[in-house]
């Protein structure tokens, strides 16, 4: 790993909504030992905080950033109330911003998934799984492979009448679209709103 120190990076993270408490971290590792994901991949929440504090931008490349399940163990157990799960979201926004600017390549399909998920919500006001899968298959580049991987569960749900064949659109979807317009839907563009927070 290249150690590229960016003295401004720390301040940038702290300026993100939800990440204001970064500096309170005492590096105790409670988050790391509580994280279910760190059991499976190289993902160390304590180290992620350390990297942010040191201004190591490479933290935005971390695979685990997109594997966090939002289980809230780190949030719950941190003795310093750092709220690491919120820092993950802030880092995701920054990573997406970098990717948009062409400075970072995102390997995970999670950003695309989230984007497609929110597009459905903006379109119908509620989730529409069939539409989500179609859009995600396209956007992630997985195409038909995606349908193959989830064929089993899809068929099982379908047989039990648990798949909606039509979107369930709410009446005043305009209001939801207004919310998206104001607070912006995609992870990348939400950075602007995060930025104004002090």
């Amino acid at each position: 790993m290249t150690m590229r120190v960016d003295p401004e990076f720390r301040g940038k993270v702290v300026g993100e909504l939800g990440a204001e408490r970064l500096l309170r971290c005492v590096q105790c590792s409670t988050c790391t030992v509580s994280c279910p994901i760190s059991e499976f991949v190289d993902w160390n929440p304590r180290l992620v905080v350390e990297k942010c504090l040191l201004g190591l931008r490479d933290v935005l490349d971390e695979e685990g950033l997109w594997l966090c399940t939002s289980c809230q163990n780190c949030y719950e157990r941190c003795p310093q109330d750092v709220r690491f799960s919120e820092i993950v979201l802030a880092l995701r926004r920054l990573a997406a911003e970098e990717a948009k600017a062409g400075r970072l390549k995102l390997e995970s399909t999670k950003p695309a998934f989230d984007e497609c998920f929110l597009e459905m919500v903006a379109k119908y006001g509620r989730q529409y799984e069939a539409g989500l899968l179609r859009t995600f298959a396209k956007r992630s580049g997985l195409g038909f492979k995606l349908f193959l991987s989830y064929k089993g569960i899809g068929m099982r749900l379908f047989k039990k009448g648990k798949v909606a064949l039509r979107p369930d659109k709410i009446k005043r979807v305009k209001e939801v679209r207004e919310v998206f317009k104001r607070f912006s839907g995609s992870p990348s563009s939400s950075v602007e709103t995060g930025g104004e927070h002090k």
Partner: protein
Amino acid sequence: MKKFSYYPGCTSHTSSKEYDMSVRAVFSVLGVELVEIEDWNCCGALEVESPLLAYALNARNLVLAEKTGLDLVVPCSACFYNLGRTDYALRDEELRRRIGTSYARRIKVRHVLDVLANDFLEEIKTRAKKKLDVRVVPYYGCLTVRPSDFGFDDPDYPESMDRLLSALGADVPEFSLKARCCGGPILMTAEEIPLKMTAQILEEAKKAGADAISVACPLCHLMLDAKQPDIEAALGKEFKMPVLYFTQLVGLTLGIKPKKLGLHKNIISTREIIRKVLR
């Protein structure tokens, strides 16, 4: 008549139909009216990276709920997390102004498990027609109990479901993984990891000699129930572990017909559980 407002959540029309059915059926037997909030929108699940967007999406629902003047009951734990944290964050007046919401926090946001286990335990016990004669492992997952900022139970070792089920006669063993993550939120983007995470829970439940796992979240249910055959295939093992919403179990003891509780909609057969309770 006691009333609550009700936020069913998107999966109530799809993968968690049986949860919605059993919640409605149980409340109706208890003589409690659930008023579905009008024109509710998706809570954003765990796919919203921007806190302001999450708050604004959920503030719309909270305003709609507040119009009914009734405390809000939420069955899905991800919805509960989003509505709950929004309600909690909106204590801050500046944030309310920034979101531009009229929500005044005149109602409470409550998980359906909280309501049934803490408000209606005695009532359920009195009305119970059948003994819950099964060994059930209680599984809460993450967002039912975390964060505890606005929670109703212990964030590491919750016990509300244990109390409810054992009061109805169930044999509820200690279960160390009860608040462990199932990995559900990354199912679509990193499948191998959640499969392993859920497998651990199924293995432990099997080891505990469980007849069934009881859950309070549609995503946990999807992973443990609908994904179970895939996990079995990946591991080369057989679990055949029924996974029921706790409201389906409560409904059975209240004498509600299995069909009304959607027990035919679970992927892993629930027949054996029904037989044991109704015999």
